[in-house]
């Protein structure tokens, strides 16, 4: 009994830490899918791209993965701006965003993955940093820094984005475009430009999310797929575009996955997110914390 209580406590703690990290991976989709209504299913592939840039910075130049991912933010932002530009010109302005837009992002996901396979192969890659090995111990609870640091970095990222959305003009404009692009146009702001900036930010978040991903686990190109379901499950459960909801939903999912892999074995944990997503979609499509 004693043993299983320790196990339960540790599973809960690592679930919360994992959840914080899931929130960072999801936040980009909360912006693009939740607020801008752009179904960017390629987002996990950009997160993996972020893992690989952090990996290069770390293994070739010896930089800290998180610091290097912050330095690389502008590059990812520009990548996002470029992708949005193509998407806008090809699909949104033609009013043809649904099927072809989805296929476009599905193609991007696939291209990114295959390109990474061609360049880096399918070997697992990992990074080296002072906080990868050690753990803190509080009573019977282990706090591996490998999970704690990513969780804190993730929460900091989401906090910064929330501040940006609430207190700057552009951030408020992004929230406005999420509600009513036409009204924004009447206020003499260009919805296209605002969406471009927001989409750039969502891809930029993939840089940091990728760096924390490769700290938590070794990375190879095809693991992007495992994250598609998780990300959209969290995004839908969190109520599409609500940052607080995203964090909460991510932590719930993290705890459930951690309990599943502790008590039933890790091979079952991918089904948890997807099962949860299916149930959420069937029962309460507005999400646990949604208003719509």
């Amino acid at each position, binding site marked *: 009994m004693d043993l299983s209580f320790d196990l339960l406590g540790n599973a809960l703690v690592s679930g919360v830490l994992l959840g914080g990290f899931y929130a960072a991976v999801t936040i980009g989709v909360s912006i693009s899918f939740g607020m801008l209504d752009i*179904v960017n299913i390629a987002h996990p592939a950009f997160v993996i791209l972020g893992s690989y840039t952090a990996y290069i910075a770390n293994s070739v130049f010896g930089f800290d993965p998180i610091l290097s991912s912050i330095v690389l933010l502008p590059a990812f932002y520009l990548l996002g701006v470029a992708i949005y530009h193509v998407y806008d010109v090809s699909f949104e302005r033609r009013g043809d965003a649904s099927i072809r837009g989805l*296929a476009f992002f599905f193609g991007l996901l696939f291209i990114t993955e295959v390109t990474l396979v*061609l360049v880096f192969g399918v070997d697992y890659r990992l990074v080296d940093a002072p906080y990868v090995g050690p753990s803190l111990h509080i009573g019977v609870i282990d706090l591996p820094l490998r999970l704690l640091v990513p969780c804190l970095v993730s929460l900091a990222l989401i906090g910064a984005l929330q501040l940006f959305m609430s207190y700057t003009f552009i951030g408020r404009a992004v929230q406005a475009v999420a509600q009513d692009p036409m009204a924004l146009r009447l206020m003499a702001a260009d919805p296209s430009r605002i969406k471009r900036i927001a989409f750039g930010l969502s891809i930029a978040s993939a840089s940091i999310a990728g760096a924390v991903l490769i700290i938590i686990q070794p990375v190879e190109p095809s693991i992007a797929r495992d994250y598609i379901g998780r990300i959209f499950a969290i995004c839908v459960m969190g109520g599409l575009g609500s940052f607080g909801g995203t964090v909460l939903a991510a932590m719930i999912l993290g705890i459930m996955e951690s309990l599943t892999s502790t008590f039933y074995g890790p091979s079952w944990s991918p089904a948890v997110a997807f099962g949860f997503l299916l149930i959420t979609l069937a029962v309460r499509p507005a999400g646990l914390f949604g208003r719509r």
Partner: protein
Amino acid sequence: MVNVRFLLLALVAAALTFAVARLIDNAYVFFAGYVVLQYIVLATAWNILGGYTGYVNFGTAAFFALGAYTTVVLHKTVPVLPLPAMMLVGGLISGVIGLGMGYLTLRLRGTFFSIATLAMAVVAQTLITNWNFVGGSRGAYIIRPAESPIFPGDYIQYLFVVMLLLSVISVAIARAIQHSRLGYGFSAIRDDELAAEASGVPTLRLKLIATALSGGLMGMAGAPLPYYVTYLDPASGFSLSYAVNTIAMPLIGGTATWLGPVIGAVLLGTLQQVATVTISSALSLLLVGLLLVGFVIAAPKGIMGWFAR
């Protein structure tokens, strides 16, 4: 009447295809041809839901692999069952799964349906990976019989003929739907679902028909797979490349008619077979991705769109 004539013509074309393949008399032709035919079935099946009603299914691999694993189970339990019967069972199971899946999600916006199909593929893969009877993550071995059971020749020729007939059937179904009340109902859903609903089109029922039919055909296409590959593991059965290919082919060929997916499947399927042999399989997949993105940006109506003008 027109449908009967089309079916006869298609059967003649199929017989010609088989005769030519026999003349070349090289086993590789049958192995490569089987894959192209399989993609004709998958692309046509995808298009019944994706092209006609506008609901994007990312879960092709799930329906396909369910059909394949049905065969693995049947092969272990009732090995005397002939392949066409196994395909019917596989198609039935995938069709019922498609129906249930559609019932859960089709009342939502189209995007959610797409995400849910992706989710379903992973749930199904996890279940199969953890199911030891069909080999779990280790995979299952199936011994391919040496001889074709109905005519003299290798078993691969038999598989080729079975897939050829299935592709004729699915193309005939897709064509018949396109010119029927059902097809007009599907297009109404694609163009404006709310307006269709308001004009009395039973949208949910039509969407469920499309999902079940599309899923069933995908399952039937997957059922002979274990005999083709002789070793089936979850990672290859549920491979994302099936989903990418079945979306790319109709979109490249053109989604509005039955002919588009066939053209897309023949072109892209052949191209991939050639590229896999001459360059590498990873590069040939990259090619599919690039073509998909290129076509959706530059040629929204696919190859068929070039001739329609």
